[in-house]
């Protein structure tokens, strides 16, 4: 559901970076999506097909790498893998955490052909 909003934001960034780097055609875009952001790859791919239309990325593929979550308990500092619905520290049984990984949506790289 939120994939379209993310795809729009992604494409804005991709086109801007392509311009700065003198790319005339984009072949591949790689993004990392944190597990906790609940980006569904199939939905994201569909949204990407819609936003790449009539741009220099119209033939580009989107590579999505999901990042596993990791959190750290603020009380005992134990690091553990939280679930979407469960951030309870296995030691303290309290959900008082800092999320170290899995909350990010990052544009990693763009591959394309340079203008002559």
């Amino acid at each position, binding site marked *: 559901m939120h994939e379209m*909003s993310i795809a729009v934001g992604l494409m804005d960034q991709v086109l801007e970076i392509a311009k700065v780097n003198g790319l005339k055609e984009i072949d591949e875009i790689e993004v990392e999506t944190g597990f906790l952001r609940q980006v569904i790859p199939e939905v994201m791919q569909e949204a990407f097909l819609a936003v790449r239309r009539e741009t220099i990325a119209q033939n580009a593929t989107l590579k999505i790498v999901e990042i596993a979550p990791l959190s750290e308990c603020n009380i005992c500092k134990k690091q553990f893998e939280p679930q979407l619905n469960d951030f309870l520290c296995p030691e303290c049984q309290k959900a008082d955490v800092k999320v170290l990984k899995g909350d990010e949506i990052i544009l990693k790289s*763009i591959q394309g052909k340079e203008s002559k």
Partner: protein
Amino acid sequence: MKVTVAKRILKDNDMIADKNREIFRDAGLLAVNFISSPGSGKTTLLEKTIAELLPEQKTTVVVGDLQTTRDADRLVPNALDVAQINTGMSCHLYANQVADSLLGLNISEADYVFIENVGNMVCPGEFDLGENVKVVLLSIPEGDDKVAKYPTIFRAADLVLLTKVDLLGILDFDLERVTNDIKKLNSNLEILHISSVKGQGMNEWVSWLKAKRQQNVGAKAKFITE
């Protein structure tokens, strides 16, 4: 050629949100982003809250809806100023829409800016508007499985308001289930029970707002003396 980027998507939105936050800080007010599904009682809560804060404290409102100015119209009588943003097909507000609205609003006299987001429990969680606090509403008629279904927005919340609690006991709603689900996401998250229509919990809610504002304005005073 491969260009390595490693940049947050939605960074553009976040940068505008940071600017909004500066505007709120300079105006010495508390900005609250109200998020919930449609029909949870956001507008009624805002109507009652704005009236409750008067005459000492004034509120400016930014309302997001796909269509109509109905919500804004309801808030006009007691609010200092109201801006309605029609988002069309977009299911959430963007920071730049809030920034544009602020240009036309009286915020220098305001103590609060209430931002009523589009009714939706998913996308508004992705877009920082520059608010100081996120208040997530969950109404009793929606059912007790909402927290488990939409954990991300509840994890992002600074306060959960259980609304329409006058319907507890009439509708089948397992309060303990909701409380436990929230505690598993953030054990420190405060939950207030409120009925805008009956007035229940209104004092606690208004006190919470005032305390948050005090923290914020206190931080501002500190910032200036430094």
